[in-house]
C-alpha cells in the first residue's frame, strides 16, 4: 500500500529509498547540493528511466513518461515517443507548462540546484551544456549507478526548499497546481519556484512516495490480520538476528511470558523456537519483512490498489479472477499473493543473512514493536513528538495538495492518514538504522516519523486540515473518530469539532427502493402477439421468458452453495435458450426483459452490496419501516465477507449483478451482446438526458425541502440506474478486448492501437461528457462514465479517444476544489461524490498508473469547453450522504479502519468485527411483513407491478406535488394564523410589561412554547389536504378508460403517498417552521378551502336476483352417470335407484338449467345427452329400481311423470340443442328388445309429446323410424317396430287435446296398441 510508484524516473523502490536517504542526509549540505547541480541532467526527462534496460517490469504502457508525454508534446501518435528522445531533452516542457517562455527547462533546472543560496544564475549556456552531459549519462543502466538518474533528487531538493521556509506553503501549492503564473504577485517566491520548475510535476508523486516510505516502519502491513500461512508465522518476530535496533526492553516483549527467560536468551537468534512460539498466537500481527531489494519485481500499482487490510478472502473467489474468461483485471488478490510469496522468500533467507547471534540485544532506545496481539499498543504522547515544526510543515504541504486535488484519490489519502493515526507500533527498518546512526534529530536526513508520537501528530495535523471533508462522513465514522483517544490527546479542539459534527449529523435518506427479485411484468402494449413477427416468435419468447426466470430462480437458490458453478449448472440451458432466439426482433424482446430485470433487481440498495452506514437505525426506520429490507441487509452482512476490499477495490459485480454478468458470459452470444449494448446505450442516453426537475430558486428554503427530497430521490434512482447500465455496457463493450494475458507492449501495442483507433466507441461518451460538463450535469454524467471506464481493457485508455476522455476527467478532478464554495459552484457533496468516483477510477489497474500526474498537458485544449453553466444540476445539492456511500462503499473502509483500531486496542484482534445490531428474533428465512403498515407498503408497490409504468409515474407525480403543496398550504394557513396569533401575543406581552429592552430571545421562547404545540394540527390538516386534492388530480391525469378499481386504488395511493410525504416533513419541521415564521413575524393570508369527503370508488358486484343455490352441473352429470352405469351394468343385486331419487334428480336438473350460473356449454351438452339416454332407459324400463323385492320396475305413471319432466326440460330449460334423435337410435330403441314383455306405449307417448311440444317434427321422427328398419333386429322386434311406425303415422298431424286427455284416462292404451 505504501509505495506510490508513479515516479517515472525511478527504477525500483530500492533506488528510491537509497536516493531518498541520500538526499535527506545531504539535502541541507550546500556542497552536496551544488555537486548535484553540476550534474544536473534533465531530471524531468520523461524517457530516461523507461529506456533503461535495467527495469524489466516497466513496460512502455506502464511508464508515465514514455507513453503519455511525448504524445502530448509532439502530437505524435507513435507509442513511446522514443524517437523524440533527443529532441525532447532539449526542450522538454515548453509546450506543456505555463511557465514563462523565458525559462527554458535546462536553465531552470540548473538554477534549481543553485537555488540553495537564493542566487539564481543567469548562465544559460552552462545549463545547456550540462544537458548534453545528462543525455549521455542516461544511456547508462541506471540501476547500476545510483547517482545517474537524478530526477528523484529534485523533488527532494524542492521539498528541502519548502522545509527551510524559503517560500510560503500556499505559494508552493499554487506553484504545483499552476506553475509560476500564479506567483506573479510575489516575485521572490516566483523566482525561487520557477527555478524549480522542472520538478513541479514530480513533486506530488514524490511527496506521496516520501510519506509512504517514511511510514513504512509504522504501517508495515496495515491493520492486524490473523497470521495464516505457517511460513508467515515462522517469521513473525521479524529479524531476530538482524542488525541491532529496538528498545532495551525488547527481549522481554519478544517472547510470551511462558517462555523461560534463559532459554529465550540462548535461542533467541534462531528462528525455529520463535516460530514454534508464534504458532501459539495465531492472531498476532505479521511483522514486516523488508523486501526492498525484491521490490523491483513487484508491481507497485497493484500493490497500492490492493486491499490494505486483508486480501479479499479466498473463500469468496473473485469471479474476475477465477473466471475462465479472464478479464485481466488483476485485482489486489493476485498482487498480495505475490507479496506474500516474497515475504516468505525473504524470511527464509533471514537465518542465513544473520547467522551471528551475538548481538541480539537492541542498542538504541527507540520504540520497538510489541509482537504479541495481547500486548498493549504503543501509546502516543504529544509531549514526545520529535520535530513539530517539520511535521507541521509537511502536514501543511500534504494537506494543501489534498485540498487542491493534486493527489489522485482523496479518500485513499484519508485512509493513509487514518492508518497513521491508528498505527500500533513502530517497526525499525534497515534504512532507519542508517539514519538513526547519523543522529541529527531535527535535520532533513532524519526520518520524518521517528516514533509513533510523530506519526500520530502528523496524522492529527492533516486531519485538522481535512476537517471539512471529515465532517461529511457518516455518523459511524465521525463517532469513531471523535472517540479516538489519540485524537483527543493530540487535538482536543479537533475532537470537539468532530463531536459536534457527529451530533449535528443527520442521516439523510432519500431512497426507498422496492424489494428486489420481482419479475418484469407483462405489458400487453409491448409484449403481446402484435409485437412479434410471427406466432412462432411470440411463443418462443413466451417460453424463453419462463426459462430465463427458471434459471434466475435456480441461481438464487444455489449460487451460494459451495461447489456450485454457474456455467456448469446453467450454461447449457442458457445457451439452448439463446439459440432459440432466431429473429432479431426476438433478441430485442429478450434484451428488453434482461435489462429491465437487471434494473429491477440490482438498482436497489440491497442489490448494490452491503450498506456501510454505521448507525443505520434512524435511516431504516424512516419511510414505510422497511423491515424486510432491513433483515435482508442484515442477512447480507452475515453472509457477505467482512472486508470490503480496501479503499480502492477493483470493479466487481456484487449480489444479483453477478447473475447478469455470468449470464452474459455463459450465453456467449454475440447477437445478444450487440443487442444488449444497443439497448444499454439507448437507455443510458435516455436517462442521462432526462430533464431532472431542476431546483427552482424558491422564496423560502423551508418549504422547498419537501421538493428537494423528491428531487434527490429521483436523482439517486436515475444515477444508480445509469451507473448500473454503464457498468454492464462497459463490461460487454470491452469484453472482447480483455484477457488474462498481460497488456501488450512495443510493436504489438502499436498495431493494436492502430487497429482499435479506427473502431468507433460503443457509446460516444466523450460527447456526452462534454455536454454534461457544459450543461453543469457532471454530477450525473461522471459517476456512470466512471463505471463504464472502469471496465476498460489495457489498451483502451491509450486510444486517443479515451485519452481525451481521461484528460477531461482529470481536468474536472482538478477543478473540484472542496474548499471553494462560491455561488453557482458545484455543491460540496456533489464534488465529494465526483472526487470519490474519479479517485477510485484512477486506481483501477487497467488505467495507466501515470495517467494522473502526466496528462496535465492536455488539459488546456479542453479548458474552454468546460465552462459549466451556472444553473446546472451540479449546483443543486442532489447528492446526499447515503447516495455517496451507496456509490462509493469503499469510503466505509475508513470506518472499518477506525473500528479495527477500537477492537484491536480492546484486546481483540484478527480482522474487522462489524457490529451488527440485532433487529429481530425471528428467523431470517421467513420474513412475513408483520406490521400492517409494512404490508400496505408492499401492497402499494405490488399494485403498480402489473400496471402500465405511466400509472406509477402519474401517482408519484401527483403525490409529489400534492405533498409539496400541502406543506405550502399548511404554511399559508396554519402557520400564518399562528404567526398572527404570535403577533398579537407579542403585542399583549410587550405593552403591559413595558419591557422595552425585554430579552427578545426569551420572548420568542415563551411565544414558541405557547404556539408550537399547535403544530400538531398541521398533521391533521395536512392529511385532509392530501385527501382532498390527490384523487381529482389522479383522475384528471389517468386515461378515462382506467378501470374503476384501479383508479380508486391509484387515487388512494396518491393520497397516502402525498400524506406520508407531507406529514413526514411536517412532523419533522413544523416546530422549526413555526419558530422561524414567528421569529420573522411573516404573515400570509391565503384562504383555506373546506374539506370535502373523498369520492369513493363505485361498488362492483353481481346484480342477478338468482341466489345460485342450484346443484352444480358436474354433480348432476356425475349423478346421472351413476344411474346410467347402474342401468348399463354390471351391478350388484342390491344396487338400484329409487323413483324418488330419479324425480329429485330431474328436479335438480331443472334448477341447474334455470340458474345457469355454473353451466358451461359442454356441461349442458352432456346433460342434454344424458337426459336423452335417461329417457331411453325410462322408455325401455331399464332402470333398476330399489324397493320391494318383487317390484324392480318403475310404475307406468311414475315413468310418464318422469318423461313429462324431461320433456318440459327439453322444451324450456335447455338452451343448447338436445340430441333427441338419439331416442330413436338403433341402440336406444334396441334397449326395448331386451324387455319382456315389450311395452311400446311409453315410446309412443314420448314421440307424440315430442311432436306436440314441437321438440321434433313428424317428418324427422318418421325419418328416424324409417332408418331403424335398416338395422338388424330379431324378427318379432322388427314387426313390432313396423306396427309402431304405422301407429305413429296414423296419428293426426295436429295434436288434439281430447286425445291427450283420453290417454291420461286410459293409461294402457299404448300398451294395447303395441300388443295388437
Amino acid at each position: 500500500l505504501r509505495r506510490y510508484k508513479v515516479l517515472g524516473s525511478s527504477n525500483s523502490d530500492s533506488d528510491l529509498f537509497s536516493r531518498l536517504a541520500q538526499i535527506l542526509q545531504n539535502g541541507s549540505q550546500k556542497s552536496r547540493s551544488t555537486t548535484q547541480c553540476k550534474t544536473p541532467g534533465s531530471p524531468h526527462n520523461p524517457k530516461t528511466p523507461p529506456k533503461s534496460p535495467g527495469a524489466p517490469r516497466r513496460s512502455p504502457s506502464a511508464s508515465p513518461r514514455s507513453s503519455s508525454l511525448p504524445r502530448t508534446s509532439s502530437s505524435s501518435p507513435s507509442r513511446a515517443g522514443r524517437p523524440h528522445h533527443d529532441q525532447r531533452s532539449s526542450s522538454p516542457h515548453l509546450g506543456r507548462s505555463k511557465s514563462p517562455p523565458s525559462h527554458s527547462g535546462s536553465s531552470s533546472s540548473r538554477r534549481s540546484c543553485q537555488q540553495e543560496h537564493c542566487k539564481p544564475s543567469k548562465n544559460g549556456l552552462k545549463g545547456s551544456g550540462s544537458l548534453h552531459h545528462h543525455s549521455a549519462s542516461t544511456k547508462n543502466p541506471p540501476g547500476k549507478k545510483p547517482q545517474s538518474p537524478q530526477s528523484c533528487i529534485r523533488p527532494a531538493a524542492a521539498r528541502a526548499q519548502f522545509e527551510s521556509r524559503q517560500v510560503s506553503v500556499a505559494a508552493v501549492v499554487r506553484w504545483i497546481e499552476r506553475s509560476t503564473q500564479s506567483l506573479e504577485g510575489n516575485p521572490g517566491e516566483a523566482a525561487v519556484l520557477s527555478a524549480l520548475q522542472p520538478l513541479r510535476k514530480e513533486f506530488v508523486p514524490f511527496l506521496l512516495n516520501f510519506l509512504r516510505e517514511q511510514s513504512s516502519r509504522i504501517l508495515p502491513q496495515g491493520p492486524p490480520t490473523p497470521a495464516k500461512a505457517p511460513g508467515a508465522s515462522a517469521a513473525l518476530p521479524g529479524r531476530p538476528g538482524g542488525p541491532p535496533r529496538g528498545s532495551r526492553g525488547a527481549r522481554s516483549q519478544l517472547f510470551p511470558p511462558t517462555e523461560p527467560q534463559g532459554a529465550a536468551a540462548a535461542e533467541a537468534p534462531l528462528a525455529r523456537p520463535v516460530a514454534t512460539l508464534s504458532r501459539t498466537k495465531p492472531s498476532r500481527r505479521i511483522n514486516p519483512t523488508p523486501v526492498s531489494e525484491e521490490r523491483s519485481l513487484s508491481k507497485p500499482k497493484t500493490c497500492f490498489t490492493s486491499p490494505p487490510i486483508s486480501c479479499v478472502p479466498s473463500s469468496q473467489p473473485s469471479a474476475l479472477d477465477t473466471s475462465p474468461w479472464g478479464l485481466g483485471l488483476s485485482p489486489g488478490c493476485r498482487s498480495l499473493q505475490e507479496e506474500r510469496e516474497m515475504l516468505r522468500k525473504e524470511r527464509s533467507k533471514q537465518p542465513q543473512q544473520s547467522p551471528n547471534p551475538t548481538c541480539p540485544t537492541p542498542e538504541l532506545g527507540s520504540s520497538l514493536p510489541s509482537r504479541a496481539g495481547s500486548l498493549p499498543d504503543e501509546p502516543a504522547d504529544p509531549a514526545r513528538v520529535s520535530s513539530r515544526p517539520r511535521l507541521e510543515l509537511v502536514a501543511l504541504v500534504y494537506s494543501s495538495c489534498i485540498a487542491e486535488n493534486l493527489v489522485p484519490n482523496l479518500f485513499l489519502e484519508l485512509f493513509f492518514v487514518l492508518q497513521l493515526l491508528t498505527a500500533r507500533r513502530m517497526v525499525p527498518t534497515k534504512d532507519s538504522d542508517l539514519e538513526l546512526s547519523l543522529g541529527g534529530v531535527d535535520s532533513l536526513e532524519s526520518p520524518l516519523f521517528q516514533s509513533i508520537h510523530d506519526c500520530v501528530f502528523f496524522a492529527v495535523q492533516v486531519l485538522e486540515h481535512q476537517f471539512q471533508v471529515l465532517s461529511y462522513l457518516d455518523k459511524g465514522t465521525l463517532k469513531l473518530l471523535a472517540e479516538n483517544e489519540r485524537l483527543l490527546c493530540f487535538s482536543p479542539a479537533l475532537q470537539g469539532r468532530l463531536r459536534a459534527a457527529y451530533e449535528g449529523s443527520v442521516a439523510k435518506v432519500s431512497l426507498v427502493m422496492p424489494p428486489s427479485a420481482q419479475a418484469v411484468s407483462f405489458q400487453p402494449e409491448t409484449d403481446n402477439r402484435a409485437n412479434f413477427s410471427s406466432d412462432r416468435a411470440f411463443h418462443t419468447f413466451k417460453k424463453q421468458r419462463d426459462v430465463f426466470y427458471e434459471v434466475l430462480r435456480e441461481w438464487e437458490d444455489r449460487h451460494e452453495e459451495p461447489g456450485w458453478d454457474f456455467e456448469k449448472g446453467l450454461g447449457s440451458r442458457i445457451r439452448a435458450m439463446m439459440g432459440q432466439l432466431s429473429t432479431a426482433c426476438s433478441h430485442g424482446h429478450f434484451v428488453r426483459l434482461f435489462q429491465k430485470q437487471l434494473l429491477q433487481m440490482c438498482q436497489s440498495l440491497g442489490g448494490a452490496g452491503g450498506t456501510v452506514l454505521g448507525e443505520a437505525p434512524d435511516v431504516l426506520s424512516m419511510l414505510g419501516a422497511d423491515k424486510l429490507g432491513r433483515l435482508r441487509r442484515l442477512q447480507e452482512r452475515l453472509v457477505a465477507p467482512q472486508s470490503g476490499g480496501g479503499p480502492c477495490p477493483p470493479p466487481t459485480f456484487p449480489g444479483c449483478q453477478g447473475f447478469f454478468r455470468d449470464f452474459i458470459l455463459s450465453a456467449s452470444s454475440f447477437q445478444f451482446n450487440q443487442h444488449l449494448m444497443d439497448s444499454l446505450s439507448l437507455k443510458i442516453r435516455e436517462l442521462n438526458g432526462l430533464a431532472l426537475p431542476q431546483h427552482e430558486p424558491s422564496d423560502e428554503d423551508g418549504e422547498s425541502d419537501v421538493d428537494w427530497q423528491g428531487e434527490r430521490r429521483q436523482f439517486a434512482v436515475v444515477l444508480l440506474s445509469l451507473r448500473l447500465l454503464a457498468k454492464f455496457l462497459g463490461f460487454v463493450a470491452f469484453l472482447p478486448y480483455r484477457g488474462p494475458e498481460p497488456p501488450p507492449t512495443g510493436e504489438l501495442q502499436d498495431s493494436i492501437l492502430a487497429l482499435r483507433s479506427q473502431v468507433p466507441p460503443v457509446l460516444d461518451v466523450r460527447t456526452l461528457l462534454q455536454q454534461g460538463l457544459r450543461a453543469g450535469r457532471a454530477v450525473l454524467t461522471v459517476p456512470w462514465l466512471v463505471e463504464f471506464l472502469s471496465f476498460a481493457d489495457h489498451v483502451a485508455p491509450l486510444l486517443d479517444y479515451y485519452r481525451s476522455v481521461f484528460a477531461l476527467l482529470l481536468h474536472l478532478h482538478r477543478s473540484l476544489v472542496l474548499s471553494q464554495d462560491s455561488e453557482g459552484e458545484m455543491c460540496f457533496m456533489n464534488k465529494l461524490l465526483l472526487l470519490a468516483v474519479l479517485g477510485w477510477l484512477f486506481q483501477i489497474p487497467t488505467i495507466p498508473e501515470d495517467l494522473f500526474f502526466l496528462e496535465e498537458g492536455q488539459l488546456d485544449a479542453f479548458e474552454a469547453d468546460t465552462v459549466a453553466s451556472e444553473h446546472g444540476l451540479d449546483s443543486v445539492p442532489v447528492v446526499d450522504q447515503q447516495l455517496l456511500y451507496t456509490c462509493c462503499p469503499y469510503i466505509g473502509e475508513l470506518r472499518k479502519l477506525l473500528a479495527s483500531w477500537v477492537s484491536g486496542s480492546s484486546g481483540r484482534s484478527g480482522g474487522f468485527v462489524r457490529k451488527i445490531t440485532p433487529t429481530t428474533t425471528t428467523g431470517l428465512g421467513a420474513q412475513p411483513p408483520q406490521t400492517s403498515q409494512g404490508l400496505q407498503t408492499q401492497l402499494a408497490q405490488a399494485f403498480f407491478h402489473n400496471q402500465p409504468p405511466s400509472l406509477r409515474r402519474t401517482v408519484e407525480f401527483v403525490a409529489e406535488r400534492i405533498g409539496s403543496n400541502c406543506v405550502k398550504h399548511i404554511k399559508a394557513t396554519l402557520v400564518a394564523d399562528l404567526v398572527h396569533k404570535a403577533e398579537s401575543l407579542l403585542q399583549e406581552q410587550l405593552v403591559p410589561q413595558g419591557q422595552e429592552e425585554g430579552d427578545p430571545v426569551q420572548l420568542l421562547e415563551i411565544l414558541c412554547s405557547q404556539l408550537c404545540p399547535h403544530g400538531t394540527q398541521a398533521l391533521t390538516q395536512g392529511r385532509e389536504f392530501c385527501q382532498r386534492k390527490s384523487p381529482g388530480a389522479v383522475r384528471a391525469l389517468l386515461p378515462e378508460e382506467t378501470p374503476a378499481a384501479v383508479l380508486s386504488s391509484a387515487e388512494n395511493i396518491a393520497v397516502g403517498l402525498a400524506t406520508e410525504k407531507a406529514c413526514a416533513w411536517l412532523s419533522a419541521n413544523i416546530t422549526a417552521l413555526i419558530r422561524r415564521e414567528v421569529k420573522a413575524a411573516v404573515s400570509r393570508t391565503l384562504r383555506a378551502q373546506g374539506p370535502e369527503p373523498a369520492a369513493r370508488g363505485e361498488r362492483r358486484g353481481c346484480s342477478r336476483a338468482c341466489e345460485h343455490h342450484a346443484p352444480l352441473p358436474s354433480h348432476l352429470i356425475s349423478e346421472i352417470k351413476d344411474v346410467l352405469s347402474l342401468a348399463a351394468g354390471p351391478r350388484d343385486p342390491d344396487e338400484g335407484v329409487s323413483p324418488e331419487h330419479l324425480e329429485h334428480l330431474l328436479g335438480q336438473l331443472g334448477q341447474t338449467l334455470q340458474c345457469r350460473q355454473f353451466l358451461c356449454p359442454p356441461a349442458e351438452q352432456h346433460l342434454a345427452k344424458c337426459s336423452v339416454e335417461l329417457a331411453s332407459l325410462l322408455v325401455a324400463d331399464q332402470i333398476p329400481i330399489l324397493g320391494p323385492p318383487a317390484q324392480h320396475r318403475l310404475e307406468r305413471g311414475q315413468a310418464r311423470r318422469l318423461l313429462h319432466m324431461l320433456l318440459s326440460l327439453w322444451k324450456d330449460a335447455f338452451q343448447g340443442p338436445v340430441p333427441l334423435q338419439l331416442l330413436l337410435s338403433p341402440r336406444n330403441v334396441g334397449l326395448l328388445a331386451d324387455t319382456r314383455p315389450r311395452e311400446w306405449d311409453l315410446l309412443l307417448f314420448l314421440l307424440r309429446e315430442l311432436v306436440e311440444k314441437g321438440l321434433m317434427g313428424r317428418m324427422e321422427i318418421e325419418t328416424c323410424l324409417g332408418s331403424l328398419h335398416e338395422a338388424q333386429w330379431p324378427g318379432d322386434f322388427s314387426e313390432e317396430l313396423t306396427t309402431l311406425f304405422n301407429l305413429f303415422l296414423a296419428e293426426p298431424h295436429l295434436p288434439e287435446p281430447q286425445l291427450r286427455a283420453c290417454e291420461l284416462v286410459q293409461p294402457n292404451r299404448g300398451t294395447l296398441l303395441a300388443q295388437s
Partner: protein
Amino acid sequence: MILTKAQYDEIAQCLVSVPPTRQSLRKLKQRFPSQSQATLLSIFSQEYQKHIKRTHAKHHTLEAIESYYQRYLDGVANNGAAPVLLELANEVDYAPSLMARLILERFLQEHEETPPSKSVINSMLRDPSQIPDGVLANQVYQCIVNDCCYGPLVDCIKHAIGHEHEVMLRDLLLEKNLSFLDEDQLRAKGYDKTPDFILQVPVAVEGHIIHWIESKASFGDECSHHAYLHDQFWSYWNRFGPGLVIYWYGFIQELDCNRERGILLKACFPTDIVTLCHSIA
C-alpha cells in the same frame, strides 16, 4: 383438506391396482370416512392416472392389442350381453374407457378401408350409437359409463367442476369487492399466459402479496403440482408477480413451500384478505 405427505401416502397406498369403478369408489369411501369424497375421488383419479401413464405402453403393443381384441371377440361371441370389455379391462388392469377405445380402433381398422381418424373415434366414444356394430356399441357404452377416471363423461365432469370453481371464485371475488381481469379478458388483451384471475389491485393473504389467483378443482399432489408450477404458476409469477393457487380439493401440506418465493397455496378462498387500505397513512 390439507393432508400431510404421510397422510397422503397412506391413502395413495390403498389405491394401488384398484379398478376405477363405482364399486371401488364406494369401498374407498368406507375405508376413509373422515376424508371428503371429492378429495378422495380426486386423489384416486390422479393416482390412477399416474398408474395408467406408467403402464400405458404395455397395453399398446401390437401383441397386447391383438390379444385383447381376440379375447373380446371370443367373449362377445360367447355372450354379447355380458360385460366382456369391462371385465377384460379390469382383468388386465387398464382403464375401461381406454380399453374400449383400443378395441374400437382395432375393430374399425378391420372393418373400414381407411384407418379411423382420431376425431371419428372420439365422436363414437361420445356417442356409441354411431358405432356400426351394436354389440360393440353396448360394450363401449358400458365401459364408458362405468369408468370413473377416463372417458368423455368423466372429462366433461372434470371440466364442469373446474368451470364451476372458477365461477365460485369469481363470485367470491365480486363479493369481496376485488376487481379483476379474467382469462378471457386477458387473452383478448394479448397476454401470452393467463391465470384464472389477475387482480387489478393486489391484495395480501397471510402476509403475502397476491397479484393473481388460479383455481384448481383437484387435489394438489406432488406430481400435478410440479407440472403446474412449471407450466403455469411460475410463468404467472414471471409476468405478474406473486399469486395464490387454490386447490379446492386440498393439497399436500409440504408443497406449500414457495410462499416466500411468491406462490401461496390454499384449499379454500382465503378469509383474511388485506386490501390496499383506503384509509390514509
